[in-house]
């Protein structure tokens, strides 16, 4: 066997993505280093790693954002490269620069590219310059009155967002002139609060838009390929919930046009790493550049499942200077994949985040199924981190099969002890409009009533109550009569 591309890689992340990255690192014969806050010392990514180091911070999240501390650990342990995962420091240009300065490889693009794509305005200007379609817009300015005047000229509906933003914070849709002033004022104050930068930006809002994104790989020397598109139209508050690949009902001409435009952007930027170019697609077939994510995406497994390409491996190979894993002409897809994001939240209470303890975890297994997670029995689910707990990814020969398999797997999946959206996701995928792929980013709002749980009938209710009644010690003892020997020998029926 040849020498590994790196000897030791530090994964500057946690949870399911840290585990997923370490899986590939281990496969490649690379030694792994995990970092963790004291609050997560028993976490799966800590157990999986060859070496784990505790990081300190005022909060667990602050610890994971502490660049100096992380780089110091990497230096001490003589790490060759750092993989940032997604979130945390993954799109922080300063971090990428600091890793390079410390003489290590950042498994991602160089700092300049991150900075270019990280700012909505510079990214948009770059896209426009390279013939990637952008929506008519108003450039941000500190002068709110000037902004409002120019925004009004574009017409409605209009999307207002924070210039420095991401993840839907500070975004709003303005449908009529009367609402513009107030919306601009709120967006600016939210932008200031969340990002420390009050500049806002407005563009044409595409009604019933679909969110289509293209997975690209760039070698950093102007070479780039795409691994086709994903559709992430099912969103709530601009956060993706269900992602699939390929996008349904996309003509091959349109698919080609979108994917080629993404490759063109990546090549022009001399992009190095895996990346995602996001677009909105209108019902009329017009598509506009949204942003580019310069990292591994949460939903990358759907692309891996249809192309058979390990994106983390590709990232590592590119970072090590091995170039692209294959030429565009050899990229093939097979079947359809759907990812569901499992979150600790209560869909029946406006998706409020939930906390709890994992009391039972039952995961279905099949060769067409991936359950990306870092859950352990007895694990506390706290508000310290993001509410996303896991991802369930199902592949099938076609979209209908992937839907059936997703519903079956969600039904079998049991995660008890914290409220989750598992049952909600099953209802969503089972909805007629999802099955027929009438997708747009307002899907969840449009079908809200249909997506509520069905009322229980009398029989179902009696079964649930009986199952619970037999579980409470107080009531079970009354039924069984002689209290504990049964439990001690482990079974009533045997």
């Amino acid at each position, binding site marked *: 066997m040849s020498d590994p591309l790196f000897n030791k890689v530090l994964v500057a992340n946690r949870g399911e993505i840290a585990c997923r990255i370490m899986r590939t690192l281990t496969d490649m014969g690379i030694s792994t280093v995990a970092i963790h806050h004291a609050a997560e010392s028993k976490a799966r990514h800590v157990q999986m790693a060859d070496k784990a180091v505790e990081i300190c911070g005022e909060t667990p999240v602050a610890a994971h954002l502490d660049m100096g501390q992380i780089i110091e650990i990497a230096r001490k342990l003589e790490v060759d490269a750092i993989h940032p995962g997604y979130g945390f420091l993954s799109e922080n240009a300063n971090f990428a620069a600091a890793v390079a300065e410390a003489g290590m490889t950042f498994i991602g693009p160089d700092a300049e590219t991150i900075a270019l794509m990280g700012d909505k305005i510079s990214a948009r200007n770059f896209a426009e310059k390279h013939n990637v379609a952008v929506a008519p817009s108003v450039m941000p300015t500190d002068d709110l009155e000037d902004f409002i005047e120019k925004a009004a000229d574009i017409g409605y509906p209009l999307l207002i967002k924070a210039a420095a933003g991401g*993840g839907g*914070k500070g975004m709003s849709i303005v449908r009529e002139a009367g609402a513009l002033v107030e919306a601009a004022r709120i967006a600016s104050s939210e932008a200031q609060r*969340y990002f420390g930068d009050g500049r806002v930006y407005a563009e044409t809002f595409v009604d019933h838009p679909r969110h289509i994104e293209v997975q690209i790989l760039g070698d950093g020397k102007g070479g780039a390929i795409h691994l086709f598109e994903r559709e992430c139209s099912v969103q709530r*508050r601009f956060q993706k919930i269900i992602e699939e690949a390929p996008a349904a009902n996309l003509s091959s001409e349109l698919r080609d046009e979108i994917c080629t435009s993404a490759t063109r952007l990546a090549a022009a930027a001399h992009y190095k790493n895996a990346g995602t170019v996001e677009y909105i697609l209108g019902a009329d077939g017009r598509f506009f550049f949204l942003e580019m994510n310069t990292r591994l995406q949460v939903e990358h497994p759907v692309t891996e499942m249809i192309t058979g390409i390990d994106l983390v491996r590709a990232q590592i190979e590119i970072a090590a200077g091995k170039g692209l894993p294959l030429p565009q002409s050899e990229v093939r897809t097979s079947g359809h994949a759907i990812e569901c994001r499992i979150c600790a939240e209560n869909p029946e*209470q406006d998706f*409020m*985040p*939930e*906390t*709890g*303890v994992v*009391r*039972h975890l*039952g995961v279905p297994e099949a060769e067409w199924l991936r359950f990306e997670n870092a859950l352990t029995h007895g694990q506390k689910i*706290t*508000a310290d981190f*993001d*509410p996303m707990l896991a991802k369930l990814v199902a592949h099938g020969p076609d979209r209908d099969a992937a839907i059936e398999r997703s519903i079956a797997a*969600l*039904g*079998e999946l*049991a995660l*008890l*002890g914290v*409220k*989750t959206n*598992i*049952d909600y996701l*099953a209802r969503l995928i089972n909805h007629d409009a999802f099955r027929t792929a009438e997708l747009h980013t307002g899907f969840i709002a449009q079908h809200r009533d249909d997506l509520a*749980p069905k009322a*229980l009938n*009398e*029989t*179902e*209710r*009696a*079964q*649930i*109550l*009986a*199952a*619970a*009644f*037999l*579980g*409470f010690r*107080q*009531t*079970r003892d*009354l*039924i*069984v*009569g002689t209290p504990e020997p*049964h*439990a001690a020998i*482990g*079974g*009533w*029926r045997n």
Partner: protein
Amino acid sequence: MGFQLILDGEEHDVAIVRRRPHLVLRIDGIQHEFSEIGGPGDGLHALKCGKHPIDFIRASDNERQIIRLGGRTFEVDLTDPFSEGMESGGNMDAVRSPMPGTVVSIQCKEGDTVVRGTPLVTIESMKLQTVLSAMREGTVAEILRAEGETFEKDAIIVMLEPETEKA
């Protein structure tokens, strides 16, 4: 002997009618016979209701039973008959946080008269902001958390003056 179980916020009566030869429970006035009752504790179990076998998963979380049955998850609580009195009136005085988080801003002060829906405090959890409002009309008695303070789920953030009997 009868018990009250709470499922989806509603009370249900469950009583043991017979234990042998098969368990018979009266659930909301209707008798159900169970020829198999499954093992104790957490995990995958099977019930036989009449002739119908039912597989389910059960986990206990303190005083709560969590049941996964038919691809859906339910939480069931057993009410303690002695704490009944506290439930109804008491709860409406306390404005509790539905999730752990931080107080972003406070929109009321002690002594304020509020009506149902009056915004009291804005809280933030996992970057989502939520406004906690008064659940009834009344007077703000005490604000227990200051801006910037963190709290756990179900923590009391604001107390209203106890409701006085209306003449």
